[in-house]
């Protein structure tokens, strides 16, 4: 047959069908982690360290075990040392499994407030909690180190005597007791600053923040008589959890089946095993199924937030607006184990601009906080907070419009990144032009109101995905992927299948499979599912069409090369009377060789970069320092928006999270390293009252790495808001913000400093 022709326009892609999982979710029929129950199920409770940094001297479980109804207790001693030191995450990423295992349950030391030291399974949750309280743990309390500058200072308490400093990029070196370092560069930094007419230099700090997914971590584990464990869990990646559980519990991967349940948000925080190995070991020891539920407080204390940072940045430009030099030193918290998002934060800091002379220095710094994990474009929000503000300041000093300044320096297709390789097709200039032309850009403002604009970049990810399609005799199609659905991807993938097969999207029934039912896939991370799993779906659809064309040839007693397929219609080039639509041919498959199904596993190699910009208006109360968001317009290049309403939803969600990061959200630790605001009353995420309607402008610069031009969209919207709000505050009241969150106290202090400086 001929290669299926891509329709001149799209029939399905670019429309806004109703999501198939929507009704289940709004009626409560969808099964989330806590909805899952199983006969004979016990309840787990986890005992966590009250200390941020301590040696475990002893653990005595005898009293707890004597409590009636307690069925099992585990400690670090119940877990073997991982025999596999690293497990790949694709594209060179990996988990250090020794660290991952120690993070699941402490063995000799605890590294943060909330680090697991033991777990109990009992007949009910209250009994499990009571028993956990009876476990006696003796600690040698050690001084904690809670921020990156303290951790890098001479004489700082050392978390790990040895650690693998090369765990996050190349053969870096352990340069300081708690930190390893990477450096990237281009050109001649001294020469660059010598050429600059204007130089700005500032220091910035940001606090640790959490993804704030509404559903906490919940899982249930059950063993069978063959020694295989099934785990039902809320996760961004069933295979990732399977791999981690298998290694941490020393099981063959084929003996671990992970069933992903509906997920109430992840944003990067649910690609890691926390409670799954605990539930598995408790269930094994108790010989009963065990459910483990993390409370909100546990989730905030002991899952993986996004790092607090210290950033020192210096940038220079010529009077005509040409950027000539950038020198950045970024120190990111890694948490209790090495490997935070320093490489991504460092690289994304300037990638979207052409700057000939650059030095980027990054430090991955151990502190007594939970192991940092990805959060929507990990590391980029922090580094953009610094760089976009310096760009705004440079534009101001030069007397240039800030969008024009960025347009003059924006990276275009083919321009080389700091890593050397040329940019794939990218629509940065088009995006900035759209910002400039939008009515919001010139809309009038009142006193104490200001407008900020920031421009954000994220790489995105490809990684491995699988898809399986089966054609039913009535012409409907079953679609199964292993990509957990965080954002409506069941539908965006079904739409791509329908587009490729030439059928209605309602005729595709999408499901998310478990690790025993579908081919391997890495996590739903990196804004990759609609892009990468979409490619797997399209490839699989083409295999289905190919086989169906062979069946049509068989039925028409002709050669398959004579069969033409277009928009789901099969025709015979040599006989105009021969014509089947998809359903008609599906009905004949049983009698022409049996049902047709196909499977593909792909690892896309050409990921389209993501770009976003945000225009935000704020009003500052100069008596209290409170900042109100008045108006937001978000601009994003989707490549090709498969489901424009979903794209807008992703943008709005990312911007809302970014506004929370900008104004409210932070981890509050006391001097001993105890987290003081481990609840959503005190960890202040924005509500509907804080965020106005976020208008979304979608641009489409096709990504040649996807058959329909799709780029990932989920992460980059969170990147510009913090910087845009800071710039808006500056434009409202004339102060430069250098700390996140920009809570009222911080803004008020800046106003006071400004008044004091004016008075002096």
């Amino acid at each position, binding site marked *: 047959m001929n290669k299926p022709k891509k329709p001149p326009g799209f029939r399905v892609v670019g429309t806004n069908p109703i999501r198939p999982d929507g009704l289940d979710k709004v009626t409560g029929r969808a099964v989330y982690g806590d909805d899952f129950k199983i006969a004979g199920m016990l309840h787990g409770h986890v005992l966590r360290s009250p200390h941020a940094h301590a040696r475990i001297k002893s653990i005595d479980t005898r009293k707890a075990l004597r409590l009636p109804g307690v069925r099992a207790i585990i400690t670090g001693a119940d877990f073997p040392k991982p025999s596999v030191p*690293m497990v*790949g*995450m*694709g*594209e*060179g*990423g*990996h988990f250090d499994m020794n660290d991952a295992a120690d993070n699941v349950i402490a063995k000799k030391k605890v590294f943060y407030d909330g680090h697991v030291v033991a777990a109990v399974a009992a007949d009910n949750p209250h009994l499990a909690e009571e028993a956990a309280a009876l476990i006696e743990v003796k600690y040698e309390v050690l001084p904690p180190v809670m921020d990156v500058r303290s951790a890098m200072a001479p004489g700082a308490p050392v978390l790990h005597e040895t650690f693998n400093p*090369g*765990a*996050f*990029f*190349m*053969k*870096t070196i352990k340069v300081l007791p708690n930190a390893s370092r*990477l*450096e*990237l*560069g*281009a050109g001649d930094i001294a020469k660059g600053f010598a050429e600059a007419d204007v130089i700005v230099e500032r220091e910035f700090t940001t606090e640790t923040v959490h*993804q704030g997914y509404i559903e906490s971590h919940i899982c249930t584990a059950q063993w069978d008589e063959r020694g295989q464990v099934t785990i039902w869990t809320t996760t961004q990646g069933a295979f990732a959890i399977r791999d981690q559980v298998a290694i941490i519990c020393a099981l063959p991967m084929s003996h671990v089946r992970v069933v992903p349940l509906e997920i109430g948000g992840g*944003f*990067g*925080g649910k690609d890691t095993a926390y409670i799954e190995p605990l539930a598995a070991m408790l269930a094994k020891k108790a010989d009963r199924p065990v459910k483990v539920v993390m409370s909100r407080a546990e989730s905030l204390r002991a899952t993986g937030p996004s790092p607090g940072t210290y950033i020192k940045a210096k940038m220079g430009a010529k009077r005509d607006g040409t950027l000539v030099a950038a020198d950045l030193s970024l120190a990111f918290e890694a948490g209790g184990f090495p490997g935070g998002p320093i*490489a*991504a934060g460092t*690289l994304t800091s300037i990638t979207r601009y052409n700057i000939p002379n650059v030095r980027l220095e990054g430090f991955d710094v151990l502190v007594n906080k939970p192991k940092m*994990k*990805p*959060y*929507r*474009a*990990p590391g980029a929000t922090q580094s953009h907070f610094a760089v976009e503000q310096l760009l705004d300041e440079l534009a101001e000093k030069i007397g240039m419009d800030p969008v024009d300044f960025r347009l003059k320096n924006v990276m275009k297709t083919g321009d080389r990144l700091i*890593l*050397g*390789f*040329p940019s*794939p097709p990218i629509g940065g200039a088009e995006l900035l032009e759209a910002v400039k032309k939008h009515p919001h850009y010139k809309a009038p403002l009142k006193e104490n109101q200001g407008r900020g604009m920031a421009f954000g970049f*994220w*790489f*995105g*990810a*490809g*990684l491995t995905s699988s898809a399986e399609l089966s054609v039913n005799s009535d012409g409907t199609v079953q679609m199964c992927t292993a990509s957990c659905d965080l954002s409506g991807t069941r539908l965006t993938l079904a739409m791509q299948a329908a587009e490729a097969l030439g059928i209605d999207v309602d005729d595709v029934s999408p499901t998310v499979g478990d690790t025993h039912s579908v081919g391997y896939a890495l*996590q739903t*991370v*990196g*804004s*990759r599912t609609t892009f990468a799993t979409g490619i797997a779906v399209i490839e699989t659809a083409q295999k289905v069409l190919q086989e169906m064309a062979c069946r049509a040839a068989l039925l028409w007693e002709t050669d398959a090369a004579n069969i033409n397929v277009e928009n789901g219609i099969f025709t015979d080039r040599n006989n105009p009377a021969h014509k089947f639509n998809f359903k008609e041919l599906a009905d004949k498959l049983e009698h022409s060789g049996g049902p047709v199904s196909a499977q593909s596993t792909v*690892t896309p*190699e*050409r*990921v389209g970069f993501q770009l976003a910009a945000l225009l935000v208006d704020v009003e500052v109360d100069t008596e209290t320092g409170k900042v109100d968001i008045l108006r937001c317009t978000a601009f994003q290049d989707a490549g090709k928006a498969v489901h424009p309403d979903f794209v807008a939803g992703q943008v709005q969600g990312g911007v809302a999270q970014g506004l929370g990061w900008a104004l409210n959200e932070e981890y509050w630790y006391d001097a001993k390293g105890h987290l003081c605001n481990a609840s959503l009353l005190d960890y202040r995420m924005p509500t509907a009252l804080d965020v106005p309607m976020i208008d979304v402008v979608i641009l489409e610069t096709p990504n040649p790495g996807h058959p329909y031009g799709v780029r990932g969209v989920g*992460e980059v919207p969170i990147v510009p808001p913090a910087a845009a709000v800071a710039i808006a505050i500056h434009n409202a009241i004339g102060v430069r913000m250098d700390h996140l969150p920009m809570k009222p106290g911080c803004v008020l202090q800046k106003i006071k400093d400004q008044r004091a400086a004016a008075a002096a």
Partner: protein
Amino acid sequence: MAIVWIPSPLQSLTNGEITVRADGGNVKELVEDLDRNYPGFKSAIVAEGVLVRPGISVVVDGRVVKKGLLHPVGVESEVFFIPAIGGG
């Protein structure tokens, strides 16, 4: 000969050269060729056998290549070693 872009941390091995030319039919052979001229290059890139070190992605002609060191290269190929980046 293919062009290899030397990552900043390894430019000390190449006397500050940002790009160097190397011979080979795949990335592994390029790395081995480079190691002959710039000792230490291979150990910085290769973990064991044909496996690239954790944390590194191999880019050939603009593609993050799944086969890593085994990916074939042409005489005009550009090869890069970049930090692995996943996402949230």
